[in-house]
């Protein structure tokens, strides 16, 4: 079997002097979907941000290999170009920059990395329109400023649209399901599934198991107080829905 697409070994990180991750280890193979669950403040978003290279975190230990490369040595834009995508929990607004412009810049950054020429304007529009239909996004959003005045649901669908256009090797989706109504949840789930392929992997970070009804994970991990305290299959998510996190937290505290 080939090496995992993402291999996290004993990753520890802190921010502003506060330790947030305490030796997280996780491997994700191409073709798999993993879910990371856990209570508020457990380090889920920190893990996603550290992997994507957000400034402000200090790596205090461990290694991360992505597609064979030392991920932590790369600046954030190179991680993105290499095919690591982060779907943001709170997508920012960029006034005056059209959604289409950012999408095209993002896609071309990926294409350059793969040694491909910049995409032709017509091919780009065809591609984006098709992916917008998948995400049930109105054409008008293409010319609007990035996330400018978008509703919460539109922002989240827009994140998935960007993912579908960039076609990453690994998508980290940070609470993409939060704040979505049931219809939007289905659309987002469908969007994520449309990306699934043997050469790609998806890591879904979520509080709730309801997204996992649509995006069925191969593995489920529970992150608590900066550690992975339990891993299992789909049934772990259902068990968490029944029992909450407390029993795991107690076990983690007892074990610490």
């Amino acid at each position, binding site marked *: 079997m080939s090496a995992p697409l993402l291999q996290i070994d004993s990753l520890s990180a802190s921010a502003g002097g506060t330790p947030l991750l305490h030796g997280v280890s996780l491997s994700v193979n191409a073709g798999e979907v993993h879910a990371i669950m856990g209570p508020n403040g457990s380090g889920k978003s920190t893990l996603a941000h550290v992997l994507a290279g957000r400034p402000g975190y200090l790596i205090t230990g461990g290694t991360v290999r992505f597609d064979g490369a030392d991920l932590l040595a790369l600046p954030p834009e190179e*991680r993105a170009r290499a095919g690591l995508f982060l779907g943001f929990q709170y997508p920012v607004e960029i006034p005056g920059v059209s959604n289409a412009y950012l999408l095209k810049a993002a896609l071309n950054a990926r294409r350059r990395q793969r040694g491909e020429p910049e995409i032709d304007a017509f091919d780009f529009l065809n591609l984006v329109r098709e992916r917008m239909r998948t995400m049930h996004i109105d054409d008008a959003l293409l010319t609007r*400023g990035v996330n400018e005045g978008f509703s919460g649901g539109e922002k989240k669908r827009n994140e998935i649209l960007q993912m579908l256009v960039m076609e990453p090797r690994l998508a980290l989706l940070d609470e993409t399901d939060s704040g979505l109504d049931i219809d939007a949840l289905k659309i987002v789930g469908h969007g994520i599934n449309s990306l699934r392929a043997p050469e790609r992997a998806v890591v879904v970070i979520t509080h709730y198991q309801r997204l996992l009804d649509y995006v069925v994970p191969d593995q489920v991990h529970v992150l608590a107080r900066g550690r992975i305290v339990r891993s299992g299959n789909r049934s772990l998510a259902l068990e968490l829905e029944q029992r909450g996190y407390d029993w795991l937290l107690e076990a983690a505290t007892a074990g610490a």
Partner: protein
Amino acid sequence: MSSNPELSALFNRGYQHGFVTDIESDTVPPGLDESVIRLISAKKREPKFLLDWRLRAFEHWRTMREPHWAHLHYPPLDYGAISYYSAPRPKGDGPKSLAEVDPKLLETYAKLGVPLHERARLAGVAVDAVFDSVSVATTFKERLAEAGVVFCPFSEAVISHPQLLEEYLGSVVPYTDNFFATLNSAVFTDGSFVYVPPGVRCPMELSTYFRINAAKTGQFERTLIIAAAGSHVSYLEGCTAPMRDENQLHAAVVELIALEDAQIKYSTVQNWYPGDAQGRGGIYNFVTKRGECRGRNSRISWTQVETGSAITWKYPGCVLRGENSVGEFYSVATANNFQQADTGTKMIHIGANSRSTIVSKGISAGHGQNTYRGLVKIMPSARGARNFTRCDSLLLGPQCGAHTFPYIETRNPGATVEHEASTSRISEDQLFYCQQRGLSTEDAVNMIVSGFCRDVFRELPMEFAVEAQNLLAVTLEGAVG
């Protein structure tokens, strides 16, 4: 911003137009007295009314003092140390066509991206090229003449259209207007003249490219655009200068007159040498630009992208005299390193139902200081007048400044005046978001800044919009840190 080390490591390509053309020039010795003015006037074979006007301006200027109300700091200027006239020495009698223009000059403009050979030009743009104190070439004159449009160097209009000059010169910016405009009135050397006859839609964009080359000279150009009833013209202005350690003075005057139903769109991309990263050198840009919407339903629109100059002091304004007339001002002004910009507009509402729109985008970086200063004045006669002002500032880095001085004087209770303002920074979140989509820090900053300026850029003619965007990117390189 400081937490991102890449931001401070952005490379600096610097000013792209800083070269000097080695050309023989006729330059009068530094200093200003009546004889210099008589000399300039004689060189241009001006009619008597113009010489008299210059001399009256000079008399008046001697009673004036340099203004210092702007938010600008600079040592006093020595007007006695400036040469007031410099012209590339003509070979023989002076060029009668492009073929006779000194190849060194053609080369200079080609290097600046303004080729003067008509076949090399963008088909839709006619150019007047002003080098130091004189116009060296004007393209597409014949094609414009077929439409009845006059587009020529100011010094030529003095000979060919003296009656239009006598009627309109100084009618919007009188020679008594302000210190720098008065100085210009006394010593102006060249510039562009445009007359669009009634009902004519000018068939191409007109543009003037100003180049300061000689050292220790000032550039004092004067532009006059007259749009007769029902006519329409779009005019572009670009400017560059060599890199020099001393400051050079540029004091221009632009007058626009729009008669009934006429429209003038005036766009500027100002890229005078801004000085180096330590604040040495650079152009002092003290400019008076004003348009008068003289007729009913007339419209004057100013769009400016101010990226250059050590000091920028300009307030392109509109006197909205005609009923239903419209004035617009769209501005992007940047101040990086030690640049200082004090710029804005004046909208004077006189006519009933006159309307004005002001959109100002100020970008400050390095130690740059950027000031918006605007006046909206509604006279008692301007019933139903409306103004909308939007004034946004973007700060890049911790040491720059943004200042806003909006003056509003309403003497008609029925008028509507709206003012919106904001000050923002590029957030870490925005940068990281863009980087996560594969953009470099530099591209991300450029994209966010362009987005900030979008409302202004889209007012520019196509040819200039791209140039302006690239220029802004170059200007702000190394800006964030």
